[in-house]
């Protein structure tokens, strides 16, 4: 009988691991989780699987302009971050919650850092899973908000978003001071991703506190760029590039913004089903190209992705 070889690559590097959330032993109040640790390309068990890829359910403190099709199942909870987070964990088995403090935007409601902290503490009290916390995307305001947030939940080891090339010092200092983990954001480019991690390292942030976000473009909106950037990051990391060995986070919620995802069109089938698969397909492409952690909007696509992860890992 012919013997077909298993072409296992002999990689010299490995993806690092990052722990999110802190349990009572470390002064926190939740069950910690670990991401990363893969020794090969995604889902090749013969090269080394690493930790299970995790799903964070998105919660926004001001849920304007969200597609009803994505968040219908949460009902009125979308107006209450605490209830929304609880639903994600209790009804939909989210591994983490990702709280986005969009209300702090000075061009919108301009909620104060103190109010943002109150929301964060409520959400942290409502769930026992680790929490990812983002500001609103406004550099100066985020610096203030995230500093206050970091101090207010200093024992919980949250994942704070995000540091980027033009704005990383305040948030890095805030994260490091309270032993939170940090999202290193870069814009669809392997070199920028590496540069960001180098900047953080030079600033004194340890790599086991860093999760990379190389910007996941949605299906039909440049997904192929992200897919290849992610793959190249993973390959470089496995080939031994220390500065690209941080685990990878992909926020797939922008996939709901593609018009084709939810437009009403009789020839295109049911819009909710289509939108759900639009997000799930984006998430699957993120996973297949190297994501360790996904931020997801719809509980239906979260369920599809959770099932896909288990099956891709052979039930492990």
């Amino acid at each position, binding site marked *: 009988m012919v013997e*077909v070889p298993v072409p296992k690559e002999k990689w010299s590097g490995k993806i690092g691991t990052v722990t999110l959330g802190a349990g009572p032993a470390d002064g926190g109040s939740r069950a910690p989780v670990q991401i990363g640790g893969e020794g090969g*390309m995604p889902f090749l068990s013969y090269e080394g699987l690493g930790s299970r890829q995790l799903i964070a359910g998105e919660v926004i403190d001001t849920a304007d302009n969200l597609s009803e099709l994505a968040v219908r199942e949460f009902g009125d909870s979308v107006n209450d971050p605490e209830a929304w987070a609880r639903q994600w964990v209790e009804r939909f088995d989210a591994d983490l919650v990702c709280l986005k403090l969009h209300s702090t935007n000075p061009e919108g409601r301009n909620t104060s850092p103190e109010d943002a902290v109150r929301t964060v503490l409520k959400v942290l009290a409502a769930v026992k899973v680790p929490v990812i916390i983002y500001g609103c995307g406004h550099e100066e305001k985020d610096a203030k908000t995230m500093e206050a947030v970091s101090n207010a939940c200093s024992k919980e080891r949250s994942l704070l978003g995000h540091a980027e090339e033009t704005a990383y010092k305040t948030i890095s200092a805030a994260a490091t001071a309270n032993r939170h983990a940090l999202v290193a954001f870069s814009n669809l480019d392997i070199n920028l991703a590496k540069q960001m991690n180098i900047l953080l390292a030079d600033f004194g942030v340890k790599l086991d506190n860093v999760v990379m976000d190389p910007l996941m473009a949605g299906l039909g909106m440049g*997904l192929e760029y992200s897919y290849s950037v992610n793959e190249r990051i993973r390959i470089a990391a496995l080939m031994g590039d220390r500065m690209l060995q941080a685990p990878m986070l992909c926020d797939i919620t922008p996939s709901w*913004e593609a018009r084709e995802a939810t437009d009403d069109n009789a*020839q295109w*089938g049911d819009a909710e089903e289509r939108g759900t698969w639009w997000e799930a397909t984006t998430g699957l492409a993120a996973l297949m190209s190297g994501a360790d952690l996904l931020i997801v909007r719809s509980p239906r696509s979260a369920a599809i992705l959770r099932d896909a992860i288990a099956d891709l890992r052979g039930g492990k």
Partner: protein
Amino acid sequence: MPTAIEIFKFLPKKNCGKCNYPTCLAFAMQLANQKVKLSDCPFITEEAKAKLEASSAPPIRLIAVGSGENKVELGDETELYRHEKKFFHPTRYAVVISDLADEQGIALKLRRADQLRFDRVGQVMALDLLAVRNDSRDPARFAALVKRVAGASRLPLVLMSEDPAAIVAAAKGTTLERPLIHAATASNLDGMAAAAKELKCPLVVKADDLNALADLVGKAVAAGAEDLMLDLGVSNLQQTVERNTIVRKNAVKKTFRGLGYPIVTNACGQERGMLMSLVSTMKYGGIVLLDDLDPAHAIPLFVLRQNIYTDPQVPIQVKAGLYPINNPGADAPVLFTTNFSLTYFTVAADIEKSKVPAWLLVVDTEGLSVMTAFAAGKMTADSVAETLRSSGALEKSTKGLIVIPGMLSRMSGKLQELTGAKVVVGPRESSGIPKLLKTL
């Protein structure tokens, strides 16, 4: 493809010049560049010919199914990752019709062939094949349905049966050219290989163990069936990724040549058929067989394929022209951007988000982004003014207000001069568009 030196070893080294090159080495160099044919050498031995042809064969054999304009081609891939060069022959999708299906079921699936056809950024995305499966085990019933499907649709067919006689009868009952036969297994290999050879059709060889599959492939080739595809018998996503990767990597890295054929994924009856189709699309799948394909699933699946099979060196372009967003009227402003799809999608999404009605003019920049197009002279005040004219933008929008990308602020004076419209310099980042639109 072997190098010139590797080829040279097999040449007669007579330097006779009969191949029109002065020396055998010169001829070898031409051969390595695929400029000449091996048969131009009158002294080449059969043994050398066989060896050279085997080593210059593509790592994954190119397989054609069907004929004419709907023909599909699979294989002939050379890469593991799309960024290394590109993926050449996109994954194809087939909907399977059982010969036990009732009239309604058959009609529904025949309709899919027409229904699943969408235009996207200037490309047609459509269902590629239909398959007929001999669940009845009745050759006559199978042949009748094959005949009906072949008459009703112009898509290439997959003939699915375990019975070589049923395949031959069905194929001969129509004028079908090159249907794909599914599948030869350990229990029917000889008959299927003979049928494929007789019908001159590509044949799927199936086994759920790769070693056994390689054995069967060897036997099929020995029996004269050379156009093969592989069904790896996968039943979950892990097997799909792992087996597809093993087959692809062995072939393109040339560590093992015995499975250098495109892959068929049979997602019929699978609990995770849609996920399996998506994974196959990303990971080396050739043809995916599906029980059915709802439009709500077809669109994300087709778009994923379009994305993954995009040439990384050639950006997807959007058709130049005027696009209405949020139902604009004559008093809505005109914004313009490049035809690089990523830029267009970002800008269009940001305008939509603003809920402010606007016209978005897409200027043909050959797929370059704003800054690159400007630097390369592909986006000038003249070319923008020309597109404004040819698209009739300033008749549809009589407000006389043009918003230009922030990075092009330098062109505002000239554009104002050329068009007579008021030019507003927009933000440098698309994300600032909603804020700007609300102030206009």
